[in-house]
């Protein structure tokens, strides 16, 4: 389990280039660094549920990002996104 305050990098992975898939990790975050705000709970993996496959239960986190680290002209002070643990690499 990742603690609040943990710095994480979103995996720079692109499963959509390898075949049909269902991903809840927005493309604009892949490879970017953020900070875990809190554990939201555990939920079944949507990447498997979408294909009616057996789905593991995974920790889901609220992770905060600095928008200007993603877009030079970003207008928000903070961007907060729900991400599943397998997409997060602790730094």
């Amino acid at each position, binding site marked *: 389990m990742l603690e609040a305050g943990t710095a994480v990098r979103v995996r720079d992975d692109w499963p959509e280039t390898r075949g049909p898939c269902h991903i809840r990790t927005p493309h604009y975050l892949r490879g970017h660094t953020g900070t875990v705000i809190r554990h939201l709970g555990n*939920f079944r993996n949507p990447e498997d549920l979408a294909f009616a496959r057996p789905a593991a239960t995974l920790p889901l986190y609220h992770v905060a990002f600095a928008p200007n680290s993603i877009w030079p002209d970003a207008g928000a002070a903070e961007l907060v996104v729900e991400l599943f643990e397998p997409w997060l690499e602790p730094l």
Partner: protein
Amino acid sequence: MTALLEADSDHLLAAIRLLLAEKQIATDDEITLARERTDKASPAQGARMVARAWLDPAFRALMLEDGAKAADSLGIPMLGLPPLGVLENTETTHNLVVCTLCSCYPRGVLGYPPFWFKSVGYRARAIRDPAGVLAEWNTVLPAGTAIRVVDSTADYRWMVLPRRPAGTDGWDEARLASLVSAEDMIGVTVPALP
């Protein structure tokens, strides 16, 4: 398959309901109940929660801790719906909700999402240029207010708890609720006196 595609929709619906019942997935009564709940859900439910939170600090605390529990306590049915997170606007932070992947929306408390919420334009711009989006809604935030964008990507649904407008001292819950729109609870606007 061709026969299925050519069937008229009433027959198709009847066939699907029969299959759902036969496979013990959902009975006719359960489907009727779910339809009634879906039709009853509207922004008026969320507005009722906001007004109550403005008047009752204990309810506000519950709402921020567990939105679904707070909704349930007002008789808003949340059974079977995703968890509800509530984002509180403060003097220093304004929240804006978007679902960049599709159209995740807290339907139990806000009803059906407005058409623009699902548009590619809103989804792309809300995350990158939220100030520009707010300006188009004629939303003016106090100088120095930071914008927090919340991208609703997975199993939670999010609503904004707006700030109570000035000039509403002594107003009762129904009158306060009448000020609050779906747009205020998404965060593109803020409640204002008429």
